């Protein structure tokens, strides 16, 4: 309950005009304004000011967007996934008539088969990162052999990215059954024993934006690029995971894709 005798402050006058005042205080402010004409005049002038601003500038909102601001022009290949989430939300916002915002998690482009793909990758992550003696099949010091073997079995060029820049070294890799064929599975480790895995397999979707998901203490970032799905699993710390995922993406980009 508010005490009508508490004087109304300057801040409350502004908050009243800007709809930032708690509901229970509104009637107190209105009562105050009825008995304080100077304050009432100021409040009225602020309302008139808002009208003047809208009268002068709202027309810009109705102008056609100039060509140079069209998202399609600003988005460049091949960094498509990096632009995807923001571009998708901006376009969806425009299509939705300009009310509300899509939260990051609501950006959906992938069918449910992609969710299963990520679940498989996270299952593999959880299964193997706890292995002390046999985390991988082929160790990281046999990188050339590892890459050649996985490329031959999987059917696209498998390259183990260099993640030294984020403090990760290659533990090694193994072959796994993927949803429609073999999957390559690489494990990386930091000096402190933090482990990340990179799971790739043929995906049903061509190309999607990058998405983030968590399961218990694990996080995964996943995307599809030209028919190959990638899942980078590791910490649920999103910033750290994004840092690693970006490096993986950048290097996959430079690699050759067989077919496509």
């Amino acid at each position, binding site marked *: 309950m508010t005490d009508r005798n508490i004087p109304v402050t300057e801040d409350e006058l502004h908050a009243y005009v800007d709809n930032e005042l708690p509901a229970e205080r509104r009637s107190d402010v209105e009562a105050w304004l009825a008995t304080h004409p100077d304050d009432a005049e100021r409040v009225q002038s602020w309302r008139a000011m808002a009208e003047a601003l809208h009268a002068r500038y709202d027309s810009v909102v109705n102008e056609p*967007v100039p060509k140079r*601001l069209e998202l399609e022009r600003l988005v460049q290949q091949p960094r498509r996934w990096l632009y995807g989430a923001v571009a998708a939300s901006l376009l969806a916002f425009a299509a939705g008539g300009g009310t509300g915002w899509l939260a*990051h998690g609501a950006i959906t482009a992938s069918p449910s088969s992609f969710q299963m793909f990520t679940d498989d990758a996270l299952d593999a992550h959880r299964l193997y990162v706890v292995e002390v003696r046999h985390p991988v099949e082929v160790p990281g010091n046999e990188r050339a052999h590892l890459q050649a073997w996985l490329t031959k079995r999987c059917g696209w060029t498998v390259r183990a990215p260099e993640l030294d820049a984020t403090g990760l070294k290659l533990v090694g890799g193994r072959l796994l059954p993927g949803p429609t064929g073999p999957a390559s599975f690489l494990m990386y480790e930091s000096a402190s024993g933090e482990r990340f895995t990179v799971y790739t397999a043929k995906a049903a979707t061509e190309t999607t934006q990058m998405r983030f998901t968590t399961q218990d203490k694990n996080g995964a970032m996943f995307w599809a690029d030209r028919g190959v799905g990638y899942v980078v699993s590791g910490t649920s710390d999103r910033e750290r995971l994004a840092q690693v995922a970006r490096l993986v993406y950048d290097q996959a980009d430079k690699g050759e894709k067989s077919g496509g």
Partner: protein
Amino acid sequence: MIPALRRYARALARDADIADDLVQDTLVRALRSEKLFLGGDVRSWLYTILTNLNKNRRRSLARRPQFMPLLENNPDASGTEAEGRDIARALSTLVEEQRAVLLLVMLEGLSYREVADIQGVPIGTVMSRLARARAHVKASLEGERPALRRVK
């Protein structure tokens, strides 16, 4: 979203081409940034980028002499045009931070919390900037039209 950004930029920078330059730079930076993976309010973030870009632009302008375009003083203008110039002129008398706060709250309808995040200051600072901005603009508008009751 982009039309509203253009409106904010136009009110902030006044010149239509400079305003669209700001919006373009904002979108390009947004599209290149990793921050988009971290979720959060994209709209606020875009306003933040644009506000900072304009701040940088004005700082570099301040270092060189500039010709300010003469404001047309056309006595035959219709009431609305004259009023439009009045509010634009009033805005130009504000310091950068006050102008941004005024526009973000009154024109773009953002909350005090959002503006505080955009400017990287406490809400109290936002409110004092808003109060001063409103006082200055009010004084400026009333100075232009002496027919109105003069507040002492």
